[in-house]
């Protein structure tokens, strides 16, 4: 067991294991100081560093070398050093840069949320709501692509894609034989299953779960319902290929879709197999555990579902000061 290193993020100090990224250290603290992440996925090796929404300012490199880092750094791919001081929401520079990134991510996004299946659980929606500005200065035609069916279960709508590469890492790391990658370059690059070859692999459905936007959608769920009208319920089954721990999304008696269990950062706890996801959509297939806890900030939690416990900031004066907005929101509820 190596010694812990001390890192200070927005004035809050925490001891973490060496090698932890700034983002993960911030997640251990929790609250509003966690930088948003669109491309980083803790369960996918090598992901992150691409979307640039998690940029933070390192105002003190480490105890040994206290010089600040010259540029903003991607917190998901920068390891902590002992004595490092990081500014996230306390740095106007970071807020400004993040606004820029959000605007830039949105310039080619169709903003077709009213007809998008991802709406309500879309990371880009949350990101632009929390960190963006209300209008755009982009006045040109947006890039569009034809929709592509990747097999009979998944649809790729590249127009919505923000090229986070998460699905590419899933295809690389979860499935055998890589058939999924990026074609083209610049803003003309597109996700491709290597000239539209269908991914037929037991775990290919996970690309839907990892997609932060509505670019990869479940064809068995498309246009069935809005996610905030469905009721998430944790369930499990004895599955020979995966752990079988899923969330069922009910509308009345009917299971509309099955997904992995997503935590508060939108990451699934366990990847699930295609049989669980697409084939077993009857309550009788599952052992119900109880309602899924949903973050209180999510539209899905509205009205009647159990929420994740509120952030702990009420007990901690330092956190209250660093997380004014979060505190106001928490004390209102």
């Amino acid at each position, binding site marked *: 067991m190596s010694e812990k290193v001390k890192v200070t993020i927005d004035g809050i100090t925490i001891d973490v294991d060496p090698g932890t990224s700034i983002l993960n250290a911030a997640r251990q603290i929790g609250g509003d100081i966690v930088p948003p992440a669109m491309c980083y996925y803790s369960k996918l090796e090598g992901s992150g560093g691409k979307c640039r929404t998690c940029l933070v300012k390192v105002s003190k490199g480490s105890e040994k070398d206290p010089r600040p880092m010259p540029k903003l750094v991607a917190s998901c*791919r920068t390891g902590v050093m002992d004595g490092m001081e990081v500014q996230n929401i306390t740095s106007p520079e970071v807020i400004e840069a993040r606004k*820029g*990134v959000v605007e830039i991510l949105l*310039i080619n996004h169709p903003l077709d949320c009213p007809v998008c299946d991802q709406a309500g659980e879309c990371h880009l929606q949350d990101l632009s709501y929390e960190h963006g500005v209300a209008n755009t200065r*982009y006045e040109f035609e947006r890039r569009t692509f034809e929709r592509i069916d990747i097999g009979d279960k998944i649809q790729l709508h590249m127009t919505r894609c923000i090229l986070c590469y998460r699905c590419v890492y899933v295809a690389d790391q979860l499935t055998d034989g890589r058939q999924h990658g990026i074609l083209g370059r*610049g*803003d003309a690059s597109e996700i491709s299953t290597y000239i539209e070859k269908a991914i037929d692999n037991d775990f290919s459905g996970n690309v839907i779960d990892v997609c932060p936007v509505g670019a990869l959608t479940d064809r068995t769920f498309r246009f069935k319902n809005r996610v905030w009208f469905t009721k998430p319920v944790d369930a499990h089954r004895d599955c020979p290929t995966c752990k079988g721990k899923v969330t069922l999304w009910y509308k009345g008696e009917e299971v509309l879709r099955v997904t992995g269990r997503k935590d508060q950062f939108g990451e699934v706890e366990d990847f699930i197999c295609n049989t669980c996801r697409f084939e077993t959509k009857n309550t009788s297939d599952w052992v119900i555990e109880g309602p899924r806890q949903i973050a209180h900030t999510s539209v899905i939690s509205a009205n009647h579902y159990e929420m994740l416990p509120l952030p702990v900031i009420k007990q901690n004066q330092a956190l209250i000061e660093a997380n004014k907005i979060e505190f106001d929101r928490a004390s209102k509820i």
Partner: protein
Amino acid sequence: MRKENNLSHLISHISNLVKMARKLLLEHINVPGINTLDVYRQHGGYRSVEKALKTMSPDAIVEEVKTSGLRGRGGAGFPTGMKWSFLAKPEGKERYLVCNADESEPGTFKDRYLMTYIPHALIEGMIVSSFALGARTSYIYVRGEMMPQIRILEKAIAEAKNAGFLGKNILGTGYDLELYVQPGGGAYICGEETALIESLEGKRGNPRIKPPFPAISGVWACPTVVNNVETIAAVVPIINDGGEEYAKIGIGRSTGTKLISASGNLNKPGVYEIDLGVPVEEFIYSDEYCGGIANGKRLKAVVAGGSSVPILPANLSLKTVNGESRLMSYESLSDGGFQSGSMLGSGGFIAFDEDQCIVRNTWNFARFYHHESCGQCSPCREGTGWMEKVLHRLEYGHGKMSDIDLLVDVARKIEGNTICPLGDAAAWPVASAIRHFRDEFEWHVTNPKEAMDRNYGLAKYADPLPKLEEVSQ
């Protein structure tokens, strides 16, 4: 072809001058057959290999390069000796030297010139540098479009191998080196060292996220040094004559000679080898170098180091804000920071005369970066396209006054927020063009019809030069 003939003519012309400029790399460029091993050896070729392998230790070579003060010639200007000494040397792991010959910066064509005419200079440098770094396999990553140069290099490597300068047990010293030429796919981004490494490994040329730097984990996760063609070729004279001798050339921390690819509205465009520290004014106007602006026109602007460095108006390119003469050196060209300076970069010197449209040129550069962005990180992928579209609109007379500030803001959002320096390279030309030529952009908005028919001319940059305090504001 015409240009090349023109060039060799020019070079023989220059070497006939009594007061000849010092040449280290291009000394024998006009010797017939210098691209063959025999002629190259007759003119002192491969002396450095014999000297280095037989009489020097690898560490001594690195020290020699450190003493020489040689700085990376690819653009960033990082001290080469220091880069070499950072190379990790773990037990049981191969080390690699990769030569970056993916020269694709608009305005830069020195490496292609060097490889075409004296390929053995590069190979000689590769052998010495590989020995210094302890690499037993080295690569020359050549841009995919340069097929002729790839063939020239492969032929030269075969010659060197036959003569015993490559392969097993070189010159009986027990040192083994295999040298390979790897063609790239023809992407600008593969000139970025980590993207080059990815491409060399056979993957998509996306830059890696640093750290780890290639000196720790490069090609196949082994310690790797990536150097520009000219840097590696410059190791040869350093070993032959000694680092101290090399350090005497140049000015301050900019030591040695540098190949400059001069293009644009010049009387004698071409590749020139200069001592670092030559005044920009002398470089443009003296007969020894570019011979002045073509057709008797006046100078409007200069891009001093390839398309990615900030553009400078005529007055600021000849003199710094302090009134000192601007020199062709790393320090002097960047004097004044981004406010009133530029960079030496890769030495792609582009001169614009009074008839050139800065808006059009900026759009052209932006179009290039839009096309060449790898699309990995969002600010560069989307921002370069956005800037190009806005600049296109401005150039074609549909611009708005707010577009100018929009461009500045988008450039600021890209700069420094990307994985690799391509984002910076895309943002700097736009930001600097607006900083120095805002009135021309505004004129394009206020007089869209006129802007289609004629160019803006020199305006406040006309002779006599404006007071420098005005510009620095």
